[in-house]
């Protein structure tokens, strides 16, 4: 059976769902970052697949920029995470209630 675009898109969606589940269920900030990486990667698969099956390079370009954004996100996010950890010795989401009105 020939692998088509929809196979890739469905795979991408399933991985995105796993990422969503991670984002919602994990309370540890580091795990949350991992789940975010999964989300970004799943989208990248979709971009690359569409690019291939349409014969258009735009998809790859987008995947490329997504990777760049993921890299900067990790850099800044980890920096903030370290500062937070140094202050509170915890990186549990439920402890971060400073947004509470």
């Amino acid at each position, binding site marked *: 059976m020939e692998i088509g675009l929809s196979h890739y898109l469905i795979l991408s969606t399933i991985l995105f769902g796993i990422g969503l589940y991670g984002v919602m269920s994990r309370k540890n900030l580091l795990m949350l970052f991992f789940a975010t990486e999964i989300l970004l990667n799943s989208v990248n698969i979709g971009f690359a697949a569409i690019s291939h099956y349409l014969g258009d390079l735009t998809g790859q370009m987008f995947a490329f920029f997504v990777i760049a954004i993921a890299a900067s996100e990790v*850099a800044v996010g980890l920096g903030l995470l*370290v500062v937070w950890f140094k202050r509170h010795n915890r990186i549990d989401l439920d402890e971060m209630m400073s947004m509470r009105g």
Partner: protein
Amino acid sequence: MFETVAFYLFAVLVTVSFFIAVTTSQALYALTALASGMILISGFFFILDAEFLGAIQIIVYSGAVLALYAFGMMFFDTTREVKEKKGNRIIIASLSVLSVILVVLIFAAPVVSDNIVANYPVVEGIGNTEQVGIVLFTKYLVPFEVAAVMLLVAMIAGIVLAGKKMDVSLTLKDDSEINNEEKVLS
């Protein structure tokens, strides 16, 4: 045939690795699973004739990003099990599944695929890397430069945030003490 086998193999492996990454309670397991998932994803890129993207994936994700995570984890006690309150897993799982099904349904709808026209078509006979280079440095030059600046800013931000007072353990002090010190310093 080869492509089909490769797709299903990679698909199963990636899904399993990522699933482990989001469910395990050990941070090291999660990191390892994530790294393997990232490398396996690059396999898809190679199948899809996007060799350049596949290389970037391995270098940036598996190399840089995960190395960064690994270094970041040295600050935290990684041997300790991650204690998490169990939320209502059923609601969370069903929400994710529901969104997945919806997205799939929308992708399956015939309206999407009919109306797409290629902006920058793939030229036959030239390597993928060369094509990417041509498009990136002509059509996407400005976004490319902006991305470069963004990475620079992120790098500086990461250094400033994480490297501030590396010699002092902030955890041994109260919030008020830290605030006072910061006031004195500034």
